[in-house]
């Protein structure tokens, strides 16, 4: 039982810390990704309008 206690404690620490770390990274860098997505979609829309003319 002692082995499993230790095993799950380690995994819980790994899970909690990676959850917090990735959340931080996504919060900081996700905004830039979103702006890039808007720019790319705008280009696609402009190209589509050109084709439809």
């Amino acid at each position, binding site marked *: *039982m002692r082995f*499993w*206690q230790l095993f*799950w404690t380690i*995994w*819980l620490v*790994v*899970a*909690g810390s*990676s*959850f*917090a770390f*990735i*959340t931080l*990274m*996504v*919060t900081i*860098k*996700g*905004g*830039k*990704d*979103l702006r*890039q*997505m*808007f720019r*790319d*979609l*705008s280009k*696609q*829309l402009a190209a*589509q*309008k050109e084709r439809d003319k």
Partner: protein
Amino acid sequence: MNFAAIDWVIVAGYLALSMVVGIIGKRYIGNVSHYLVAGRELGIYVGIATLAATEIGTITYMYNGELGYKYGFAAFAAALVSGLVMIIVGRTGFVISRFRALKLMTVPEYFEVKYSRGLRIVTGLLVALGGILNMGVFLKIEGEFLTIVSGINVRYLVAVMTVILLLELVYTVLGGMVSVVITDFVQYVLLSVATILVSVYAVHYAGWGRIVEKVTQTMGQAGFNPLVNPKFGLTFIIWQVLLWFSLHTCWQTTAMRMFSTKSPETSQKVMTWTGFIFLGRGMLPMLWGIAALTLYGTGAINNGVPQPVVNGQTLAPIDAMPAMLAQLLGPGIRGIVVAGMLAATMSVNSSYLLGWSSVISQDVILPIRRALGKGALSSRKQIFVNRAANLFVSLFLMFWGLYYTPPGAVYLYLNITGTIFLAGAFVSVVGGLYWRRSNTTGGYAAMLLGAAGAIIPYFFLHWGENVTGFAAFGLAAGGLVFGSLLGRASPVEVPKAATVG
């Protein structure tokens, strides 16, 4: 009522922000590829946010909390399998990178690329059936969480959930995947903050030493070792490995995120990093459930665990975790947590609405039209059909979701309803991508036997979930192999890319 004025302000502010950013997405919808896969322009970070937000809902917290309450630390095995399998899929690109290279928009679309239009329609019907039944229990359970934590009178449950569903529906119908991605980003940040806050509160109030002691005292070895816990064991773990490989590759809402990324390499990175989030997605709410057992597990023993008693009232194990939050969280924090849970609810529901309605429109309605000899629809008309399918799924959910109660543990009900199509779809996809001999006869046999293997044992023979899961995957695999060997070899080679999108 547990809510203070500050809590209402936080929740109302979040709802207003979600609606505004969601409606922005409509500007970027020019064709069906924008509507369903955001023009395939997702980068890594926003990809992680939308994939994680899609698969973390209040329903996830509720069923994982229930597992933690009932089975202690042994339940962590399910979370560990889900996260590790996701990391393996991401690192190897198993299925997902080939799927992304094919430029698909839905999973059943692959069945027409590799097998036949008829099989695409059959798969589409099974995917929609399994997916909508799966989603059917979300609203009621999410509503339970919100009413318990906020203290809203249960009489208003239907009205509250209907309003939330309508809000999600507005931005999903208008802006499709683009709106869903934008709102998912906001919702992911909020739900993650709430998750971290609740985890800190739960451990602080219950105390780590007391948590371990309570599980030891109540469940003994079975509370820690999944191999000796009668609910789990080796068969459960093997079934979970199979199930999670199929979920991370063939589950429509997950696959749509992979289809929406900029490249196969981006899809692999998104999957790998989200795998680490999946560890916390399971283990943290399970820990909240164990903390609720520690604090409130004082009632009569039922199925080996004491029932939760809060303020003199005996509750179901699934309600112990939200009841704990209602007791522990103070004004302001409670508002942030409920806004976070609402965010989780809305991100899952909007993605699932889009996912299942896209299957109904793209893989059932449109192929049937083509089979009847009617011409292809323009992109604008396809978007209209998708929006109509979205409304249909929402209406179904309002009536089914608020009144149906699943039997047994919710997590296992969700697993089985998912298996209805996942067993056959996963086997047919893997066979189609990696085994040249697989053909349409094998595909039909896999889909139909996989569905029968999930429905008949579980709903009619009342077998356990593990055995049902094995039956479904075993029958599907047998069906694909024997069907393919008996039928003619498929003359169609897998093309480099699908023709649509």
